[in-house]
């Protein structure tokens, strides 16, 4: 019994890690294809059928480039920066429930790398650590443009983490649990007479809007990509990077997008739940399998949305970014918390008069 659980667990952990990397790899391809399609072009189509081997070719190219370290750079920190960015990006997907449970030998095993009861706090902590990768890399480059990019990244991430945390607090008031698995399970209940439709987006539409805007800012995506703003800062924090150091930074960005999409799908869009999931009368393991597939469809749609927005909107000015973060999103999210709390209080205890 012990050994089967260990085997299934290891398989799940490996699969989660592998799929995270695979999706991040092909995000680079998807980004170029989507960019091309939106601009009426065809995009990469030479390497392999429909250009499907393009990410491989890019990786090989990056490996063959010279690993350049500037003369006055702090060499240890210069290498630690991209490594840290990649590490934190990969760590975050460990607690996301990628599916319900598998039934083997009368034992229910979670389709999740680790189940922790403070999953959402873990993700917050790890994602907040991610900014250190950018900070260290930008500072170690010993270059004013890199440093400016790093400073921008730090202040932007801190500003938007506040609003993000507030929108999460409103969600936690609804779900009254910090565990991502419990939050996902609650969304599988019946709403409007349809099982598996009790999604949090119906309770927290404003919270979701704030969360998705903050997720764009946290992952340094357009319209919040000021840390790597080419027009002002050359390349921002990765100006001095070449070869795989550069590759790791770019890769970490795509892993972050995957994680942000997975978190949004889990928190607001029902996770692995799908409509009519318990009304079909299918065996437990099959429902789990379909649920995992549905979750990945949701994640891919979010990733597509990230890219769609990138090729639509221009970049913010820095003061606009700060205005939006501090003067709009934080008051809105606080109002969201108060309204949610009031509604929950009234629905549980009735009106106070």
């Amino acid at each position, binding site marked *: 019994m012990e050994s089967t659980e260990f085997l299934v667990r290891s398989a799940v952990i490996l699969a989660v890690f592998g799929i995270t990397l695979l999706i991040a790899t092909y995000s680079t391809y998807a980004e170029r294809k*989507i960019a091309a*399609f*939106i601009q*009426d*072009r*065809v995009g990469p189509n030479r390497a392999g059928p429909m250009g499907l081997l393009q990410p491989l070719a890019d990786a090989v190219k990056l490996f063959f480039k010279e690993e350049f370290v500037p003369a006055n750079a702090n060499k240890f920190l210069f290498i630690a920066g991209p490594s840290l960015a990649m590490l934190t990006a990969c760590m975050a997907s460990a607690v996301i429930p990628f599916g319900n449970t598998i039934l083997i030998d009368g034992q229910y095993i979670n389709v999740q790398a680790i189940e922790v009861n403070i999953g959402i706090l873990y993700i917050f902590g790890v994602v907040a650590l991610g900014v250190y990768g950018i900070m260290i890399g930008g500072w170690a480059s010993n270059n004013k443009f890199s440093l400016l990019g790093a400073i921008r990244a730090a202040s932007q991430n801190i500003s938007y983490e506040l609003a993000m945390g507030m929108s999460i607090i409103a969600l936690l008031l609804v779900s009254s649990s910090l565990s991502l698995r419990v939050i996902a399970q609650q969304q599988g209940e019946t709403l409007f007479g349809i099982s598996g439709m009790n999604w949090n987006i119906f309770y927290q539409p404003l919270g979701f809007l704030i969360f998705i805007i903050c997720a764009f800012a946290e992952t340094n995506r357009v319209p919040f990509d000021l840390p790597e703003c080419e027009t002002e800062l050359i390349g921002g924090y990765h100006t001095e990077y070449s070869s795989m150091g550069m590759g790791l930074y770019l890769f970490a960005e795509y892993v972050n997008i995957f994680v942000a999409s997975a978190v949004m799908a889990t928190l607001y869009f029902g996770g692995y739940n799908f409509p009519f999931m318990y009304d079909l009368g299918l065996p437990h393991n099959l429902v789990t399998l379909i649920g995992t597939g549905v979750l990945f469809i949701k994640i891919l749609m979010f990733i597509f949305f990230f890219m*769609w927005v990138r090729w*639509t909107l221009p970049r913010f000015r820095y003061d606009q970014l700060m205005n939006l973060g501090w003067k709009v999103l934080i008051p809105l999210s606080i109002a969201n918390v108060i309204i949610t709390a009031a509604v929950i209080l009234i629905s549980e205890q009735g009106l106070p008069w």
Partner: protein
Amino acid sequence: MQSLSNRAKKLEKKPMNFSERMYLPAIFQGLSITMRHFFKKKATIKYPEETRPMSAVWRGLHVLKRDEKGRERCTACGLCAVACPAEAITMVAGERKRGEEHLYREEKYAVSYEINMLRCIFCGLCEEACPKAAIFLQNDKVAPARYERDEFIYGKDRLVEPMPIQNQ
């Protein structure tokens, strides 16, 4: 000042209303525009596999024609070289020997005939000047890119139309 064309629009700078200040409607409008382009037909022509259709009067790479019996039509009269505004054409005339009647149509022919494709402006005046209907500009070929300058000087080996198969 009075506008002359009456096309000038007067701009009103009103303060933005609530929906404009939210920016979300404008963002969704932009997203719908990019989504329309996403599904649009792509303008790209995948060049080596497919080529742009050329018009019937397109002036591309030159060809020296043969007549119906496979003999070279060019008699090296030099009218094309005179007509050429870019002075891209040179030739050396020679006399046809006995026994070469199947190769050259008249008793005078071009021993060498060279066009410098770097000088040529593809105006087509050589085609107009030719009294023997020997030189034409094809509409399905262009001079390809080369690495060396001397590769752009096209001699008879690359200009004369290949022999029809039944005559070989």
